[in-house]
């Protein structure tokens, strides 16, 4: 009897904890994966190893964040990756045209942000104002955005100016640039979480009809969610441009569904109303850690995709099981 009451109070506390921080199961999985990485390749958990990981997967983290704001409201954006591609080629072409100076880089980034924002607003209008199904409508706009990207840069390979990728890969005061980026990102996310928009998006995701009846401007809120998604997709494009140092009109396409997977791995509900951006970031990290682990254990290259896929499935199941156990 005594043990029974003990276990219920303990699971009650755990339940509250997981409810408050839905990303805890994901964090647990990420830590386990990190430990496994360290086991097979001790250097991967060194400062340089972690820097490399963040540098490579910062883009996916950004895209996962982008996707999260849309998923908050129960929507989805299948064009997120295409927006990354479009912004990638737009900024590379602009930087090249303007000569690759520091000013041109800043100007190109500004225009890149605007391009991402515009794509997001287009998605929002199509889905929320025209009331088309989010999955199909954003699939269509993804083809459209990819088409634009191919028009801007028909063939991959234009290099980004050195000023740009040297900054992204460089160090200031012995600390890699990407860590500054992560800190700024954390501040931005903290600020965003406190805006009315975050709460309103979640309320719409919980029950759009109820939100409408409560007097929330549901259409406007959903459009704003897509706009935010577009902005973060542009940031993801900056990261990927810094990482690959070149323009590629198809670079982001395969990232779309990874971003959706990251959101789910992070404990958010695809049906909306429930989730955290921190979870999505951890979800993106999990995918990165799985990819590097598959490499470090020495999987033959022809089997790598298969093992990656299986590992993501296992991580998903583990997340669901841990979350269910904790909330039961």
């Amino acid at each position, binding site marked *: 009897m005594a043990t029974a009451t003990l276990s219920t109070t303990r699971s009650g506390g755990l339940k509250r904890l997981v409810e408050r921080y839905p990303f805890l199961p994901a964090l647990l999985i990420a830590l386990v994966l990190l430990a496994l990485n360290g086991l097979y390749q001790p250097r991967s958990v060194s400062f340089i190893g972690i820097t490399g990981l963040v540098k490579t997967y910062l883009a996916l983290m950004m895209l996962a964040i982008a996707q999260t704001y849309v998923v908050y409201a129960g929507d989805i954006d299948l064009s997120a990756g295409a927006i990354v591609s479009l912004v990638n080629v737009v900024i590379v072409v602009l930087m090249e045209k303007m000569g690759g100076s520091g000013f041109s880089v800043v100007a190109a980034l500004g225009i890149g942000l605007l391009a991402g924002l515009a794509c997001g607003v287009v998605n929002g209008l199509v889905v929320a104002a025209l009331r088309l199904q989010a999955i199909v409508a954003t699939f269509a706009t993804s083809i459209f955005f990819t088409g634009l990207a191919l028009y801007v840069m028909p063939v991959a390979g234009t290099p980004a100016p050195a000023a740009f990728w040297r900054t992204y890969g460089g160090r200031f005061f012995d600390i890699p640039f990407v860590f500054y980026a992560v800190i700024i990102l954390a501040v931005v996310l903290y600020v965003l979480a406190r805006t*009315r928009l975050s*709460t309103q998006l*979640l*309320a719409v995701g919980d*029950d759009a009809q*109820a939100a*409408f*009846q409560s*007097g929330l401007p549901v259409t406007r809120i959903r459009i704003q969610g897509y706009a935010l998604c577009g902005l973060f997709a542009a940031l993801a494009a900056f990261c990927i441009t810094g990482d690959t140092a070149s323009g590629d009109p198809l670079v982001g396409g395969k990232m779309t569904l990874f971003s959706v997977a990251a959101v789910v791995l992070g404990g958010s509900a695809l049906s909306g109303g*429930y989730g955290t951006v921190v979870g999505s970031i951890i979800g993106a990290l999990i995918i990165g850690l799985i990819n590097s682990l598959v490499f470090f254990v020495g999987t033959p290259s022809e089997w790598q995709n298969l093992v990656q896929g299986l590992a993501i499935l296992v991580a998903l199941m583990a997340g669901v099981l841990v979350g269910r156990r904790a909330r039961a």
Partner: protein
Amino acid sequence: MSKIELRGVGKAYGATLALRRGDLSIDAGEVHVLIGSNGSGKSTLCKILAGSVRPDGGEILIDGRPVTIGGPRAARGHGIGIFYQELSLARHRSVAENICLPDLPATRAGFVDRDALEKRAARYIALFAAVAGEDFSAETTVDNLRADQRQLVEIMKALATEAPVLIFDEPTSALDRAQVDRFFEILRGLKAEGRSIIFISHRMDEIFAIGDRVTVIRDGETVGTEKITETNPAAVIRLMVGAQDELAPGHAAPPAAAAADRSPVLSVRALAGKGFANVGFEVARGEILGFGGLHGQGQSSVLRAVFGVNPVGSGEIVLDGKPFAASNPREAIRRGLAYVSGDRGRDGVISGRPILENVTPIHFLRQKLRLARPAALAERVRPALEALHTKFGGLAHPINSLSGGNQQKIVIARWLIDRPDVLLLDDPTKGIDLSAKTDLFTLIRKLAAEGMGIVLYSSEDAELLNNADRILVFNGGQVRRELTGADRTRYNLYQAAYEAA
């Protein structure tokens, strides 16, 4: 001058007329009660006023000026706040966030002003502090709350609009006595401040405890407004019934069967489960037993529990003299029970599949068939479909090609190939046309005459009064009254349904 006036407001959904002609006039500083039977248009009227339903016609005047209410936000702008019967809460958000959701307080920089939000929410939570329960706090997320606590949150949310006109659409259905008393105290305070309150409830005692005037709506039309002090429950019920009472046990009513000389085929004793308690009844072979009362008073829950869809908490079911406790519908079907629901999409049709497949699943289950031979099946299916005058192009056509009424006939026909002993009908005529209804009830009476025991729950009172031998009136999950013989009148039905426990 009235604070708010509605003149001839109407709303139709396709062919269904939800509100024919709504007239209503509310003064400042009064509690105005709306009453009417299931589907009479009360909620539609409220939603039109709250902007979440756009009227097809009519006029709305606020302070004597005609206005158009374009949406819920516009309604708020006009000073109208509402409690929705189906609640409008975001279940993953906290109580405090839900209370302030329509108008989240923001700092100058556009962030949510947590302090202001908590302070504002605390003001309304404090109103119910004594009755909300110990586990109720501003930080709790709504999906961790009990039904009554959720209803309190929706009340707080409506109060937090601080609107001069407040609409409460059945705000007390899940509340306990103490919570209702506290709520009424608050309403009286609001009234003293000169606010106008529209209040919908199905509990006659509440209406007379809190109301100043009462407006009765019948079949989508306002039929009259009375001062509470100048009327009484019986008079209100008479207004709700209208001239229809004479029709009630009309031409087609079957003779009250002398059930005593027939053996009960299904008897239920002290059954309890989610949504109902202490329900007992007997159905004899050849008898039609009616379940009546307001919507959602446990009638469906009882039928679904007997059929094994929902778990039974306690109690005893005897089928054909043998104890029976179905843990799932398959078992219930094997033992000779049948269940037809008005919610065809959820419980009835196999969407997108041919008619033949839709008629035969029960046949397959009961005969333990392994292989389907369409020609042989068609032989068995046709008589069942013909018994119901079902109109269809061919057995291979998809069921979605049929009208709602014909789809429901297909669903019923599937039970006719291998006859069950007891047929449970859960509001079977929802959304089907008149001629299909007639065919259906002709068949039901024929089946009863051939010895089947039938339990009929219907939200349309006329169907019950015209077809049932006995009517059990449900209220709050329990059987309040049994109407037999000449007692089966609309007046008695309403009285039992609306009278509080």
